């Protein structure tokens, strides 16, 4: 029996092996931290978020989506200078949402993936800013123009990344 933590209750449910489950989020957080030092524009992307969405949609398990989002988000939080939990809560919500939609929609289509990633990016940012302002009293400025631009950029990168990750997932 393969070591995975995917539920396997649904039709068309995929799973990732343990090495991929551990290494892909680690690599995403690492690249997110390292690449912007060399390519400053890269900080508009959120690779850990894209990995969270991809894992949640492929597994189609809400509990798995919640924990995947929470763990990746907390790990990302730990590298920032801000309070731990901001990214954790945001990605928990996104993980839950992505896995919930993954059950009901066809998320194998590139167009659907683009649209979902765009929506989830905005949801992620709204949750993040709400918590940062409401709970932690951080004075972060919101810019719709900037956030929508980033959402489009992330959605495009997401479609490419999901195609790459599709090669690593296994049908249950």
């Amino acid at each position, binding site marked *: 029996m393969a070591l995975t933590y995917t539920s396997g209750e649904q039709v068309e449910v995929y799973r990732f092996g343990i090495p991929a489950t551990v290494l892909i989020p680690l690599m995403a957080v690492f690249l997110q931290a*390292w690449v912007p030092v060399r390519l400053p524009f890269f900080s508009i992307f959120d690779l850990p978020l894209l990995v969270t969405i991809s894992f949640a949609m492929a597994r189609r398990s*809400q509990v798995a989506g919640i924990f995947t989002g929470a763990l990746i988000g*907390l790990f990302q939080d730990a590298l920032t*200078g801000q*309070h*731990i*939990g901001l990214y954790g809560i945001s990605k928990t919500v996104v993980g839950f949402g992505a896995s919930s939609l993954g059950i009901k929609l066809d998320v194998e289509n590139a167009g659907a993936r683009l649209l979902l990633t765009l929506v989830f990016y905005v949801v992620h940012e709204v949750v993040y800013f709400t918590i940062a302002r409401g709970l932690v009293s951080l004075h*972060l400025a919101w810019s719709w123009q900037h956030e929508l631009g980033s959402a489009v950029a992330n959605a495009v990168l997401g479609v490419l990344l999901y195609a790459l990750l599709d090669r690593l997932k296994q049908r249950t």
Partner: protein
Amino acid sequence: METVLGRYKNLIVLVGVLFVQVLGLAVQVKRTTDTDSSRLIRIWAVGAISPLEKALVWTQTSTGNLWHNYLYMRGVRAENRDLKLQIEQMRIEQVRMSQDADQARRLQALLAFKEQFISQTMAAQVIGSTGSEQSRAVYLDKGEKDGIKADMAVITADGVVGKVLHAYRSTSLVLLISDQTSGVGAILEKSRLQGILRGLPSGEIGLERVMSDEQVPAGELVLTSGGDRIFPKGLPIGRVTRVSPGSDLFLNVQVKPTANLSKLEEVLIVTKVDERQATPDQTVSLRAADVLAERLPTVPPKPAEASSTPATGAALQTGTVVEGKQAQPKPKAPAPPPSGAAVAVPVPRKVVKQAPPSGTVDPVTTGSAKEPSQEAVKPADEPKPQPPPQDPPQ
């Protein structure tokens, strides 16, 4: 009951996970000190990422050094020549500025001012970032074991970068001045208006608390005021790029950092800042004349015998003052030079302008450094070359 739990299992898990995280946030907000409960998680996360970052940076640096230092040497000569020229210009500028600084120190001493100065720095390399637009911070390859502590200032040659937020064992997290949660006490160079610099969402920084009835010209340099007790006073932060009327009674002043915060590679951590009362510099200051004199064309070094033998040399004949002492009058019969070469008259490199006799050109004050010096080398009435003596005079 079991059916209800089973039906809403996912929602219950979601609420539970969110609740735990919100609780964790509340605890962190309550505890504002650095020894917070989240430190362990941060250490683990940084410990997992930073070794890989360090390895990559080391590989990149080594490859770059190998290429630039040993293989790709194109343009090095020209660059070297340009740099030498630049050094000469900067030395002259330094002399001028040191005289201004001396004057400022004298005035500060009169007013019993205490000045801060950077007495110790440590070079560090940027190995990573937080990767988040909401948290503009970078990781350095130096940490607690290197003596790095929280709240130390981080600078580059161009200006202020930020301050150390967390120091881990072998790495440290530096909060950039462009972060929205940072704050730096600042003062405008000319108008001396003070304010607080904070990061803007655009990545620029804004100067807050400047009254709307003040005049702030674009392009003015913004310096640290020293009021935050982190950054020593007078370090450049940025230049004013745009000024617009803001809300309330304050101006919106946008500042572009002088340090390139988006492409940081090496930085300096200010590990020690001393504070002392200003005292006028007691040492003899270097004058522009001295610098120019040192830049005169190369003159053969002064032989030991010649320095103790006042009877030789054109400097004496022309009456030039050497080392602050008046030259002796011209001897009636010039002694042969010890080395036998009449032209190679030892001329001191420091030629100063005390009481030149008539007809002598001061090599420094004329502004022409080359020709006067040659004139100084050349005796007024050059002695005829004579055969070297068999026994040089003792």
